[in-house]
């Protein structure tokens, strides 16, 4: 497995927002989701996940609330806000632009 994949700066926030776009999730759920969807490439360490979640809370893009989890354990669920949704689409556009730009550079002869 090794170390978690190094992410481009700022992309973790984008990924979390994307994960939450599907619905409310707790921290562990987010980490699992990212890991599963990326087929074990993106393993988010908690020491970056939780600070990132605090950042999103501070910016008002997500809200948090304690709820019972699927196996009846108390867990803190994060929900995307309207501002968070807007941020997600903006960041996503920006990210796409960046990828395209990088592709152009890498493909240049």
């Amino acid at each position, binding site marked *: 497995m090794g170390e978690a994949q190094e992410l481009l700066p700022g992309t973790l926030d984008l990924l979390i927002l994307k994960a939450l776009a599907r619905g409310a999730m707790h921290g562990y759920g987010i980490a699992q989701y990212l890991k599963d969807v990326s087929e074990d490439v993106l393993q988010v*360490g*908690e020491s970056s996940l*939780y*600070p990132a979640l605090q950042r999103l809370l501070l910016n008002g893009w997500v809200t*948090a609330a304690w709820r019972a*989890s699927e196996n009846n354990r*108390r*867990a803190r669920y994060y929900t995307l806000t309207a501002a968070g949704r807007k941020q997600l689409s903006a960041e996503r556009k920006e990210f796409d632009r960046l990828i395209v730009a990088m592709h152009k550079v890498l493909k240049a002869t």
Partner: protein
Amino acid sequence: MRRALRRLWYALRQRQSDADLAEEMAVHREMAERELAQRGAAPPDARLGAERLFGSAALARDRSRDVWIPPALQDITRDVRFAVRLLTKDRGFTFAAVMTLALGIGAAGTIFTIFDGMFLKGLPVDRPDRIVAVRALDRQGRPLQLSPAAFDDWRTATESFRGLAAYAGATAIIADEGRPPERVAASYISATAFTLLGERPLLGRVFTADDDRRGAPPVVILGEGVWQDRYGGDPRIIGRPVTVNDEPVTVIGVMPARFRFPMIDKAWLPLAMAPQVRDRRRDARTLAVVGRLADGITIPQARAELDAIATRLAREYPDTDAGLHAAVEPYTGGFSGFDNPWSDALLAAGFLLLIGCANVASLLLARAAGRGRDLAIRTALGATRWRVLRQLVVESTLLSTVAGCVGLALTWAGVRLWIVSMPVANWPYWFRWDFDARVLAFLTIVSAATAVLAGVAPAAHLSGAGTAALMKSDSRSGTTGRRARRWTSGLIACELALTIVLLAGAGLMVRTTIKLLQIDSLVDTSHVLMANVHLPEARYSTPEQRTRFVETFAEHLDGVPAIRSTTVANVWPFYNAPLRALAVTGRPDVSGGPGPVVSYVTIGPEYFETLGVHLLLGRGFSSTDGTTGHFAAIVNQRFVQMFFGGQSPIGAGIRLTDINAAQADTPRLTIVGVVPTIRQHYAQDLDPVVYVPYRQDPTAVPVVMVRTSADPNAAAPAIRESLRDLDSSLVLFNIMPLEQVLAGTGFANRVFLTFFNVFAGFALLLSAIGLYAATRHTVTQRRHEIGVRMALGAEPRQVVWLFTRRMLVVLALGGMAGLAGALAGTRLMRGFLVETSPSDPATLVSITLLLALVAIVATVMPARRALRVDPAVVLRCE
């Protein structure tokens, strides 16, 4: 903004937030563990795996917190919390430090508030900083008023002002049907003045250019006070005819009570009505001028422009205008250097504050030295120097903030005390001592400066020392804290030096006050009542008429049984008299520097008898003195001392010129007598006075003084009755016992005496505390060494000497610096010392002895504690 609110919300419930995060992460780990277990890992492996996956919980927690609260802020919060704990632990120290600083801050705040209210704040109008007084200066730099002709020239030529207005003092007697006539402080004033100052009338209108024309129907504007008191606030006052100085005029407006320009006025007449504006001679200088600077023009620019105009006029009118310059100054005087008592008091308060800072700095330093080991360990463990310094700065900031708050309260109390103890006097209307934003800003700046000054020494001490040195500094070896001691000695030397300067100031004020009491006691003020009369121009236009009235009035009063003697004068004793330039016959004119100026008092017969003053030389005025061919003068002792070197001036001739008046030929006066010095100015050194017979220059506003056999106030009705018999339209005003006048004029002196003595007293106390604390601290620090010395057979005397020796050196150094400072500093006080040299040896010697005595007691007392050290106990502690 929202982010800031969220941060705040987080900070307020930080404990809850931390708990949330901790639980959340625990749940996370549990879930991961369970999943690993489901995949078949053994429970211990599962936990380890989960923990590995999770990474460092502590790191996650810290980083999460950093998101909400910037790390720098967290550090400061910790520093503040630590400082609070430290300060609340050592309450005695905190109280002493806070009070020391608060005294200084309160003293500075009080003086600043009073000073600001008088000189800096300016008139209570829109943009007061743009309002300036405009004057002319003669060749010798003496301020002159402007002649009406020159004012017109300046006003039409200048472009630096939005407006210029002239005014001249007037005594207005308002009379109308059914009410007794009443005297009101009034001015003749340019129509432009009201708009220039931006003040609207309460009722009616202000003057227009049409009112301010020669021959216009006469009009008057009343102040709200007169309108309320005399006319019961009747709005029908507008358009009503009243009599002012025997002339019928129409009331056209009422000004609000807050407007009393230029001084304490309650009625205004158009400048064109002033008799003096009809005099078109360019050297008949009778007008004061106020202006509002045009936008973007500075005071120096305005002065330069007016100067150019004055130079042009000097070429045009060389006889009268040659050598004239323009002066433009803030209307309320502004800040004109440290040569007035108020700015000196401010300086003294600043010194007191500096002494307080030095004291607190040395206390903090002692404590910091005690913490040297602790700080050294922290540095060794990787705390940056900045981190350690910041802790100290936070501590001193906290102290000075609390001290600032206490100082604020002291300032408030000080200003209240000033306001209630002030005598009822005719202060200019712009004097206001509000507790406003300016005062708060001043106190904030002073408190911030205090934090820096008090915190800088310990910080500098620690930042200069290496870790190893700090480590050692707390050890029990004999050479402890030498650096800290050097700093402390320096601070205490500074304290002592500043204290000497303050003591010198206080000592000189005491000498001055004693002198003033001696001098003023020459006048027997008991049983003397004074009152002013105004003789209106309309019926008393010639000098002969005025002299005749005054003589008849005095005769009438002498007939009253309760009155023992009567006299008149142009001004009463202890009060500012008009000034005249002096020339002594047979001596060359002093050209270049400002020529001698003397106070000019015109007196009726029996003046000195009424005041209980005896002639020293020569004779009093005879009935022929003051008539053509017999112009005579009596001078005071101060005059003789200044201009005749103590030789008899009897028979000498002098000439007096009014630099503001048209230079007609001034008569030669023969000195016929010498009297003791009676002051005509307060809060400054004794003035030379020349007395001339009243009939030689009869003023229109004479003051009548009577000596009574009983309570002087009881004579007032008799005086009023005599006046009514003579001329029922005349009014008495300023009716006061002379004793009250003296008490009032002594107020300024008493205030400065109090300020200087209180400040010097505190300074002495603080220095003593500083010395005491420092010696005591050293003794405690060197207990071990003392023990060894005593075990080896040192005499108690030698041990005490060990500690006093050092302080004596500090005392000598500080004392010498202080005396040098005092010699330089007290020169500033020259202007308001009376018969006292700023370097008065008796004062300097006695204050030095006082300080030395206090300093030695403050050193020896704690040093004797060393004797109580039991060598056996100390050495066993090892």
